[in-house]
């Protein structure tokens, strides 16, 4: 899998927003028609809902696969698109989309990566996976200042009095990683049982026993402070009742949830948070921007993987006309076309 360095400018034929099953299969359909693709996904792995929400669950309605798990489906799709060398920009939010003077689109990601292409395919599914926010009063005024859901640069937290909320791998990993550089690290979790990797849990318990980390078994209830700067977090436990944990930084790890995100600002005339498309080309009301998979809307739409695959095939036909306006498009089967087989690396000529 090709992973590009963050923060560069790239030119390609098609930008695909979302590396879920439908975005992945779009690479295949575009590739058969000689179009190169770059994919952007906020997750750090491909597969969308299939790999994030139900990797181990069996799916029974993928044609010709009587049963296949979410992760296996993702792995097979990744294998199927290898011949087309797609470039993945993972861990990045597709943030803004702008039309350039030459008629191409310029997409900028949250990490500053710039991608330019004549065609954009929005395959954003149920939306981007983003951190779930704790339900706390006045949360917004602290976000980005003293409340965070991810660690981008560890240095930012040097010398801080950090409280980390959660009991999974993210919470434990960051508690362990930040402990040496922070002034203080405390962990707050609702129960004295951690689902994180046992090794991390053991290390955490050792630090707590040595007095180098604090552990509170409690619920987080309130944020204390002013002007976005935390001075403490209100907590409650059965043993201690209400109490304040002094800190100047809160890192909250409560898993992920899907939110539409920046795509709402792309000017695509949303219909109840979905993108309306035609059913011939799966193009949005903005020519050269297509939308396929769970995120699109048309009469009779079914949010099924197989529908998204079909949409990808039809989308590619029209995308070809934009990417190669002077070329003629011929319909061919992969079974019998030696030209297609060459692209797939399976022809005698390619072998």
């Amino acid at each position, binding site marked *: 899998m090709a992973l590009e360095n963050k923060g560069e400018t790239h030119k390609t034929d098609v930008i695909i927003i979302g590396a879920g099953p439908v975005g992945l299969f779009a690479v295949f359909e575009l590739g058969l028609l000689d179009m190169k693709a770059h994919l952007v996904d906020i997750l750090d792995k491909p597969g969308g809902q299939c790999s994030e*929400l139900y990797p181990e669950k069996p799916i029974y309605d993928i044609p010709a696969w009587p049963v296949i798990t979410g992760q296996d489906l993702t792995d097979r799709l990744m294998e199927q698109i290898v011949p087309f060398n797609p470039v993945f920009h993972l861990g990045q939010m597709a943030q803004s989309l702008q039309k350039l003077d030459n008629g191409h689109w310029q997409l900028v990601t949250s990490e500053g990566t710039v991608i330019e292409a004549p065609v954009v395919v929005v395959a954003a599914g149920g939306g981007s996976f983003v951190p779930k926010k704790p339900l706390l009063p006045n949360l917004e005024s602290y976000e980005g200042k003293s409340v965070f859901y991810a660690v981008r640069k560890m240095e930012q937290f040097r010398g801080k009095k950090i409280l980390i909320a959660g009991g999974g791998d993210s919470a434990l990993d960051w508690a362990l990683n930040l402990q040496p550089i922070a002034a203080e690290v405390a962990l707050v979790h609702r129960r004295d049982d951690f689902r994180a990797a046992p090794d991390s849990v053991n290390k955490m318990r050792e630090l707590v026993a040595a007095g180098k980390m604090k552990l509170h078994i409690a619920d987080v209830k309130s944020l204390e402070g002013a002007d976005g700067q935390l001075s403490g977090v209100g907590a409650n436990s059965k043993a201690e009742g209400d109490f304040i944990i002094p800190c100047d930084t809160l890192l909250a790890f409560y898993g992920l949830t899907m939110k539409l995100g920046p795509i709402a600002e792309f000017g695509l005339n949303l219909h109840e948070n979905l993108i309306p498309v035609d059913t011939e080309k799966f193009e949005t009301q903005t020519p050269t921007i297509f939308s396929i998979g769970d995120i699109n809307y048309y009469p009779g739409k079914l949010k099924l993987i197989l529908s998204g695959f079909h949409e990808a095939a039809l989308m590619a036909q029209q995308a070809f006309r934009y990417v190669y306006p002077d070329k003629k498009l011929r319909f061919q089967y992969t079974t019998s076309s030696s030209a297609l087989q060459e692209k797939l690396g399976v022809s005698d000529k390619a072998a």
Partner: protein
Amino acid sequence: MKLYVTDQGGVTHELEGIEGWRVMEIIRDYGLPIKAECGGCCTCATCHVYVDKEWLDKLYPMRDDEQDALDNAFDVHDNSRLSCQILMSESLDGLKVTLAPGTEP
């Protein structure tokens, strides 16, 4: 077979229970607001409910994965359960649950 569900706004609804269905699915099928983002995979905790105290002991006990998933919920109480992990049956006729904060779609 009845199921009583109090929504996030405090209004109680009488739902027809369906044998063998997950309580989450019955709530969603009836049209009450419930996010249930992972579709019953016991990972998202956005189907979190408070079970009426008198019914708590009658439910099948929580498995570890349900406890784990509840780590991603808020305002977890002793009577917190994930409604996708409760199967409706005759023995639960009359079950009362309240949709917890964070379950709004």
